[in-house]
């Protein structure tokens, strides 16, 4: 039987929804599903993980050094637990992307990045070339499978009827001292989280300035949406880096995605093609974004966006 360990992602006592998406992928692999919580204070995220449907047990590793998720410190701790497992999974977030290859290398195995489909316990589909090709990867059964899960491909597993047991895992590993956390500047926002929001409004370079990007925030707030941005808008300084949607930014799958002043480079489209409904507003009728938009509207965004905001009020 497969024995799967998911590395839980959490911050400020909250389990990240990306972890629950990994559980959904783990169910497709099939077998025992454990979630590991590495933290200074694991109780709250562990309790949330234990509620997820299909989870066999939650294992906590408590250490002051785990107050911040540093890949170089977490990796040897994960390796200490790895003997019990056939599969190690983490979300394909910056947390998982930083951490899991380090774990794979310590175990001497390859990693499958960004799993989008589980064909069987050792066969997976993943995107390459910014999602312009999908490859089927077969992992050798004699090795552990180490994989990151592409969140946009999996809905989050909800709470189940039972609560899994929470056990403290006793591990003794020497932690490296070469890496120290200094600070995290989180973009303070009352808006929904970009990676899990049901609705997202994104702005592109056509907005023209950080000031005019306010139009995007206003429309987003009107419909309770998260705010995203194209790479061009982030590069131009109109929006912070954590808003970037696309191949090298965030891959998202909201129910509604509204792209405003975004032409639709392949690298951006990669980040949104699992969205339910895509709306595009752009002055260029030939913009590639219209090739994948469910609803396209050609015109001047500075006229149309305020109109749209008003019509929704």
């Amino acid at each position, binding site marked *: 039987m497969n024995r799967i360990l998911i590395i839980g992602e959490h911050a400020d006592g909250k389990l990240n929804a990306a972890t629950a998406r990994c559980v959904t992928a783990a169910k497709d692999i099939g077998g025992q599903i454990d979630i590991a919580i590495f933290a200074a204070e694991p109780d709250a995220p562990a309790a949330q993980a234990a509620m997820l449907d299909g989870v066999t047990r939650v294992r906590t590793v408590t250490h002051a050094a785990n107050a911040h998720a540093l890949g170089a410190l977490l990796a040897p701790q994960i390796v200490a637990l790895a003997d019990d497992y056939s599969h190690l999974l983490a979300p394909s977030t910056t947390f998982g992307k930083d951490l899991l290859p*380090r774990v794979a290398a310590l175990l001497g195995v390859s990693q*499958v*990045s960004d799993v989008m489909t589980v064909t069987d316990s050792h066969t997976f589909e993943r995107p390459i070339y910014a999602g312009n090709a999908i490859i089927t990867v077969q992992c050798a059964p004699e090795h552990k499978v180490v994989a990151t899960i592409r969140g946009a491909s999996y809905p989050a597993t909800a709470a189940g009827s039972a609560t899994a047991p929470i056990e403290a895992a006793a591990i003794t590993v020497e932690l490296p001292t070469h890496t120290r956390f200094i600070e*995290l500047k989180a973009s303070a926002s009352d808006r929904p989280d970009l990676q899990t929001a049901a609705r997202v409004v994104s702005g592109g370079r056509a907005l023209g300035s950080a000031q005019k990007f306010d139009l995007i925030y206003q429309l987003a707030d009107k419909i309770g949406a998260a705010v995203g941005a194209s790479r061009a808008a982030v590069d131009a300084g109109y929006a912070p880096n*954590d808003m970037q949607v696309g191949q090298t930014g965030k891959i998202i799958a909201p129910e509604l995605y509204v792209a405003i002043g975004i032409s639709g480079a392949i690298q951006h489209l990669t980040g949104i093609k699992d969205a339910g409904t895509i709306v595009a507003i752009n002055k260029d009728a030939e913009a590639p974004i219209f090739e*994948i938009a469910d609803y396209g509207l050609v015109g001047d965004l500075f006229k149309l966006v305020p109109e749209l905001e008003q019509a929704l009020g």
Partner: protein
Amino acid sequence: MKILVAYKRVVDYNVRIQVKADGSGVVTDGVKLSPNPFDDIALEEALRLRDKGIASEVIIATIAPADAQAHLRNGLAMGANRALHVVVDRAPSPLTAARVFLKLIEKEQPDLVILGKQAIDDDAGQTGQMLAALWNKAQATFASKIEIDGAKATVTREVDSGLETIEVDLPAVITTDLRLNEPRFIKLPEIMKAKSKPMETIAFDSLGIEAADHQKVTHHAPPAKRSRGVMVKDVAELVTALRNKGLVK
């Protein structure tokens, strides 16, 4: 201080990739090849550290077939001091690539290794972290700012929740994100100068590495297509459509 930069050749950013009809791969014959954009950023950062007098030598390294010399000349023209070319017949897995780089580290003893956070062909995003693990050194991934102070580096990282700053002891591995810098343009005299810069060819087999082939790619497919929707004539029509689908109130 010596900096080793990973410098991979990939299908150019602007090429629209086509999957071969038989699913055996993607069409790469005759398509434009370029340095991986994140590796250009890695090289630029190394050159800036040299410009500031922090680094004394910048070495680029690639793992590629024998025809990759022009690619390395490009990196030399950008300003690298010399190049290492590990010759392979087929693309190595990220773990194999990390093992190769570890060998190059043993040979060159760099104080810093900079790689792109991912290559835009396989989009794996693994090699830097794997190398740091095998080397047993610190890693600072997705860097948007690097400051070197003696034997330490302070690195700002682009993470999902914002910007994280960590401090790492050198030697270390750093991987670059998009906003670390804007790579310079290559000037014609530099292209001429690059022709006489040293380039060392190393046969993969001479390194005594076990290739990590735990994965087989059995099929390539084009992605599921989203079909083109409808064009609406005005905001009212758009809002009606979205309300009918229950997407907005």
